[in-house]
């Protein structure tokens, strides 16, 4: 053991993950030294994972209110209004560290956890999504194993629990090689009157635990997630939680049945730090105290210590605060579903958090102090690499000789290619509401019995944020919103997942702060407030370093009529293709530079948020008016990739001619923002162009859809791309299968 480690271990609070000053602070709050149980309570509640110690001060930047916002950050999930006294609730959550160690279970329990957040709002979970980031497979069989286990885990859980997995993203960079990212999102539906809160009101009311038995699972997961992933974690490995989607399905049915009655005053799911954090949060919101007897908690293992029971992260459990006297009725309903509902404590009036064992007090601290985790505003310093990457000029790379081949390579790039291999393993149709399934720009899930639907997307771009955290983050929100409008949805709100490295490093803190500012700017401009989110810091390994700064956006939008549902594939030969937005000479940060030239460099494309908002409103308007046959945003891989995608999915050819003075590669593969590709029938062409002119949106009719199975692109009368549809389809459709099959 090194000297440093020996020193670390002599102080028990350090071993628990608390700093000297935090220890000092908590003894001040308590007026005495804590015992082991009390120390464990603080260590968990004051971790980054539960206490948001590094991120909370930055949240002030967010816009969190708006006309459709019913519930902003602060509950288990945010809530937005979708008219007719109906609401949807949604949130995302990371499960990066568990997934790195036990990818199947880590990913599966991530799905289960976020579903319970939605359930805790009183909602029925109607859709799941996931955003995944891995290192490049191929070189290491380990990465392929990770990918296939994570996807298998998500599938097994989601399929069994009966919530359709309707979308997501999978992105690759070696920045994630040692530390993959697994973020899961869930969306729930309910009537406004059915909303539940995580609050422990009513002194004397009972705390009931429902669902699974408590074991030593995920012991210390909350503080574990707030540490680096390094070799020391070997001992944390026994801590892996195992998910039981069958139990979760029963929990959903039973909880919703109980919520229908008038028994429950508050609900909280048990996530990080289990019984402890769920009960502290509900008590704190009500300004009450609680007492919990660990002996009453139904356990799976013997001889569990009180603090183990309090912080266990056994899955598929929820905390209900029920009206005194209704406990038996609650239990009866759970019993019908072969589950138990057991009273473990009650709401008190003294503001204390009291842990009992067999009626004897074993720990007692003020509730407020557990919620009052110290926050840290750290030093920020521009990352050193930016000085280098910002120097990039387009002239640094040559235009490839064979542009057809370049297009094929991009279509086969793991970031761009079809993810059918992935979502074929997910039941995306269960519940019978999936109008637009995975493979489109946004998933569209209808509200049964109504002529409306919600659009759901998940987006990120770690490379953009690495090269320009602020503008990169803003671009993600813009892209997400673009995906919504091209699908016929009006963007409503976002949930954000902040996946970063160690914030105690000034360059990482800079990335965190700037990304949050960028997100906030875009959310204001596009009127998509932040209604919740999640932070996962310390994503780094000694071997591979820090991940790219990776804020992930989950967005929902409202499709006001099923007639507005729009998809990206071309529909009929003869339709006209319209390009919206200006194309600039921008290659920086592009997928093209990365994949073709091996360069992660340059600045991210400019982003004019005012123009973005205006363009999106226009696109939504012409879609709602029924003037459009297909709509697609121009994103990764630029115009040529967007065109090819619309052709491949529509099984039609296209011939377009542009007239732009930029390099050939910028034209074809550059990622200038705020561009869209539409197809419209001849009848509606004038209406679309006229309205664009009226709104001041640049719109050019660039060509037509055809059925002669080739894709051609010309610029300034020069033929740049002339390629068979089959070749494109083959590259796009088979790349992921190949990726997963290559042996090393």
């Amino acid at each position: 053991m090194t000297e440093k480690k020996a020193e670390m271990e002599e102080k028990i609070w350090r071993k628990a993950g608390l700093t000297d000053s935090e220890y000092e602070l908590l003894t001040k709050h308590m007026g005495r030294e804590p015992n082991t149980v009390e120390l464990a309570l603080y260590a968990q509640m004051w971790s980054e994972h539960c206490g948001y110690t590094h991120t909370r001060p930055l949240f002030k930047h967010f816009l969190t209110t708006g006309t459709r916002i019913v519930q902003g950050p602060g509950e288990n999930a945010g809530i937005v209004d979708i008219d007719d006294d109906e609401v949807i609730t949604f949130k995302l959550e990371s499960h990066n560290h568990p997934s790195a160690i036990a990818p199947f279970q880590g990913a599966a329990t991530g799905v289960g956890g976020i579903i319970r957040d939605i359930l805790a709002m009183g909602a029925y979970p109607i859709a799941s999504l996931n955003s995944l980031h891995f290192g490049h497979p191929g070189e290491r069989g380990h990465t392929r194993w990770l990918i296939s286990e994570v996807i298998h885990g998500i599938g097994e859980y989601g399929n069994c629990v009966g919530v359709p997995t309707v979308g997501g993203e999978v992105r690759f960079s070696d920045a994630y090689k040692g530390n993959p990212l697994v973020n899961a999102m869930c969306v729930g539906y309910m009537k406004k009157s059915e909303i539940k809160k995580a609050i422990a009101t009513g002194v004397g009311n009972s705390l009931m635990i429902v669902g699974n038995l408590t074991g030593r699972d995920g012991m210390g997961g909350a503080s574990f997630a707030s540490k680096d992933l390094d070799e020391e974690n070997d001992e944390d490995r026994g801590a892996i939680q195992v998910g039981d989607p069958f139990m979760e399905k029963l929990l959903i049915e039973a909880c919703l049945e109980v919520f229908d009655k008038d028994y429950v005053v508050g609900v909280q799911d048990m996530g990080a730090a289990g019984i402890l954090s769920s009960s502290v949060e509900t008590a704190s919101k009500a300004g009450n105290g609680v007492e919990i007897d660990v002996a009453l908690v139904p356990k799976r293992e013997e001889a569990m210590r009180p603090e183990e029971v309090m912080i266990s992260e056994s899955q598929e459990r929820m905390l209900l605060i029920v009206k005194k006297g209704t406990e038996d009725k609650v239990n009866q309903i759970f019993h019908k579903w072969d589950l138990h509902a057991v009273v473990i404590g009650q709401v008190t009036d003294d503001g204390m958090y009291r842990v009992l064992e067999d009626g004897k007090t074993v720990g007692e601290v003020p509730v407020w102090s557990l919620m009052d985790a110290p926050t840290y505003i750290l030093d920020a310093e521009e990352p050193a690499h930016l000085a280098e990457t910002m120097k990039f000029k387009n002239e640094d790379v040559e235009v490839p000789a064979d542009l057809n081949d370049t297009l094929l390579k991009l279509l086969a790039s793991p970031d761009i290619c079809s993810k059918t291999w992935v979502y074929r393993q997910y039941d995306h149709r269960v519940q019978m509401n999936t109008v637009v399934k995975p493979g489109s720009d946004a998933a569209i899930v209808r509200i049964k019995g109504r002529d409306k639907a919600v659009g759901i997307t998940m987006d990120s771009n770690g490379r953009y944020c690495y090269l320009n955290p602020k503008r990169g983050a803003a671009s993600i929100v813009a892209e997400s919103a673009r995906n919504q409008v091209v699908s016929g949805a009006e963007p409503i709100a976002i949930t954000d997942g902040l996946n970063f490295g160690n914030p105690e490093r000034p360059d990482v803190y800079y990335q965190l702060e700037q990304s949050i500012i960028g997100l906030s700017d875009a959310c204001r401009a596009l009127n998509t407030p932040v209604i919740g989110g999640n932070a996962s810091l310390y994503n780094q390994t000694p071997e591979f370093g820090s991940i790219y700064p990776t804020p992930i956006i989950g967005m929902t939008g409202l499709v006001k009529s099923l007639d507005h549902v729009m998809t990206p594939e071309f529909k009929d030969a003869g339709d006209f293709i319209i390009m919206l937005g200006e194309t600039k000479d921008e290659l920086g940060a592009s997928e093209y530079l990365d994949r073709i030239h091996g360069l992660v460099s340059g600045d991210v494309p400019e982003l004019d948020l005012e123009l973005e908002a205006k363009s999106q409103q226009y696109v939504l308007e012409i879609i709602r008016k029924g003037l459009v046959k297909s709509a697609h945003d121009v994103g990764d891989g630029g115009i040529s990739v967007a065109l090819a995608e619309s052709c491949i999915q529509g099984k039609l050819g296209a011939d377009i001619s542009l007239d732009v003075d930029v390099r050939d590669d910028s034209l074809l593969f550059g990622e200038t923002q705020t561009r869209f590709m539409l197809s419209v029938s001849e009848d509606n062409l004038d209406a679309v162009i006229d309205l664009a002119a009226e709104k001041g949106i640049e719109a050019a009719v660039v060509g037509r859809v055809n059925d002669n199975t080739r894709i051609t692109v010309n610029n300034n009368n020069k033929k740049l791309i002339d390629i068979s549809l089959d070749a494109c389809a083959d590259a796009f459709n088979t790349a992921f299968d190949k990726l997963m099959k290559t042996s090393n």
Partner: protein
Amino acid sequence: MLKAIVTVMLKKGIFDPQGRAVQNGLESIGFDNVKSVRVGKQIEIALDTDDKASADASVHEMCDKMLANPVVESYSFEIKES
């Protein structure tokens, strides 16, 4: 020719939802003396060798590398003539 019979089970202390479901299932059809159930895998590997010692070493390696995930599972095996 030898045959390795490998048993892979979830480690003690790790929750086995499948075992619990089977236990409940057995109870529901009237088996009331079942204390607990754990479900694991049995993997039978026919090996093209007659050398027990080398077979032993290589099955160990197979388990460590592929057949069991040491984070959640433990394994044991025996080697038989077949």
